[in-house]
């Protein structure tokens, strides 16, 4: 049994920062039992973000192990009565609740109970989404710059980018933007100094050590290396964005866009 023990946030709502050792291996129905002595260590911080929200942080690193805890907590709280919205991010989940039904300490208790009961995430069950991409040219105005930045040919950038498998860390920012983990480190490229006023929908981009795709036309400072014709946001769909947290993503180079 995995336990997360944290101090109560207290009546005054002060932040408590308790280094945590999750000190027992997970017993998982599908995965083999981890060898004894396999310890995970997270700094779990639970604090109020507003009078109706609680921010649960699993430290300040971006890693697959941390991300699994984010997915696990998010899934554990979906549909819980009184929980209005969940905002997963790189290493935290912000939880909005109805202050007429719950308060911070009741919410914190729910977080601990549901998180424990949820068990580890099974990555094998994740959906794989393949996105066709027309790299370079008018669709990828920054491809040449990215190649130059790394001293490689544009073809090599495409090969590396399309050769990797990505995972949607979370969907956020302003327009259901999917933050993708798994960018080959050789392709990590700083964002533009001055963001573009408008980036077309479907633009495939690199921002620092992350990959992403702009679901809607919006301002943006990531390096645009190509474009996918797939519709990544449909206001009539439920839910509107095509990509969801936890999805696996691959990019497939195509010569033309329909």
């Amino acid at each position: 049994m995995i336990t997360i023990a944290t101090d109560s946030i207290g009546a005054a709502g002060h932040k408590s920062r308790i280094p945590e050792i999750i000190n027992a291996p997970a017993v998982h129905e599908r995965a083999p039992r981890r060898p004894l002595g396999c310890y995970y260590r997270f700094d779990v911080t639970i604090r109020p973000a507003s009078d109706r929200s609680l921010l649960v942080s699993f430290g300040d690193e971006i890693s697959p192990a941390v991300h699994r805890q984010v997915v696990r907590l998010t899934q554990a709280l979906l549909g819980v009565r009184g929980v209005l919205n969940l905002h997963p991010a790189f290493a935290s989940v912000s939880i909005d609740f109805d202050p007429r039904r719950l308060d911070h300490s009741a919410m914190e208790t729910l977080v601990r109970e549901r998180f424990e009961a949820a068990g580890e995430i099974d990555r094998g069950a994740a959906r794989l989404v393949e996105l066709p991409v027309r790299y370079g040219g008018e669709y990828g105005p920054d491809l040449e710059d990215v190649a130059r930045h790394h001293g490689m040919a544009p073809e090599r950038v495409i090969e590396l980018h399309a050769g990797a498998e990505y995972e949607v860390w979370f969907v956020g920012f302003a327009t259901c933007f999917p933050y993708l983990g798994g960018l080959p480190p050789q392709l990590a490229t700083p964002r533009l100094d001055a963001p573009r006023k408008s980036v077309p929908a479907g633009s495939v981009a690199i921002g620092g050590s992350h990959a992403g795709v702009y679901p809607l036309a919006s301002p943006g400072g990531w390096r645009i290396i190509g474009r996918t014709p797939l519709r990544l946001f449909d206001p009539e769909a439920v839910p509107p964005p095509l990509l969801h947290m936890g999805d696996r993503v691959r990019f497939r180079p195509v010569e033309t866009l329909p």
Partner: protein
Amino acid sequence: MNRIHVLAPGPETTVQDLGRFGWAHCGVSASGAADPLALRAGNLLVGNAENAPALEMTLVGGAFEFDGTAVIALTGSDFGAGLPLWTPIEIAAGTVVRSAATRSGARCYLCVRGGIAVAKPMGSASVHVTTGVGGRPLRKGDVIPIGEDAVRRPRPAARGFELAEDRGTLRATPGPQAEWFAGELHAAEYAVAEESNRIGLRLRGPAIPSPAGHMLTEGVALGAVQVPPDGQPIILFVEHQTTGGYPKPANVISADFCRLGQLRPRDRVRFESVTIEQALRLLQKQEEWLYSL
């Protein structure tokens, strides 16, 4: 079914209920009435459930013709309709409810007994203007069906609504990065900038120095006050982004969301720090007023 004919929509009139909850993890913020107290009060006055969809007008109202008899209530700010606010009014078939530029705050609600009968994609009738989820702002010629979902008799006119009317002070609890700041936010007066919208209320005033800490992008809450590198705070509003990477010294309290909805460009505001317990007591007081209607 009775209908409302949109003769003139006003610059940004949308159908709103209390918002589309449960989709932030997919990147869709709740949207919903900018002044939820005015919407709820208006609905209670005409005998609707408090979450019934109504029309939200922004800064300038429109002209709406009712093709049947109806019971309506105008709540929020006075848009010069020549009708008493916070009061259920029975109108005859053919009546045109016509309003103009605001005489007070940013929003006026036109609530109709029975509610507005529109589709509720993902559980809510609220228009999310930025993404188009839930539809779009009204246009001239739109015809809006009136529902039959009233749940009780209309109430007498509301009293005590002035408790919602002071919008110059925003009470706020500490934000997740409050300890990164030295109280600069609460020391100054800010003006609401013209480019404010349902995504964010942009403030102009003394720049707040950027704190030294490095933070990861994290989830953000309605009413969060974030400080980008230029030091000019932004209050995240009903169509806010679901995550953000700027530090947040404060978060406006739930009881003052109604004030946020009434802030208009060039209004001046100050922040007052309160504890979570004080915030919840203020919310309780507001709820008691609402349910006294």
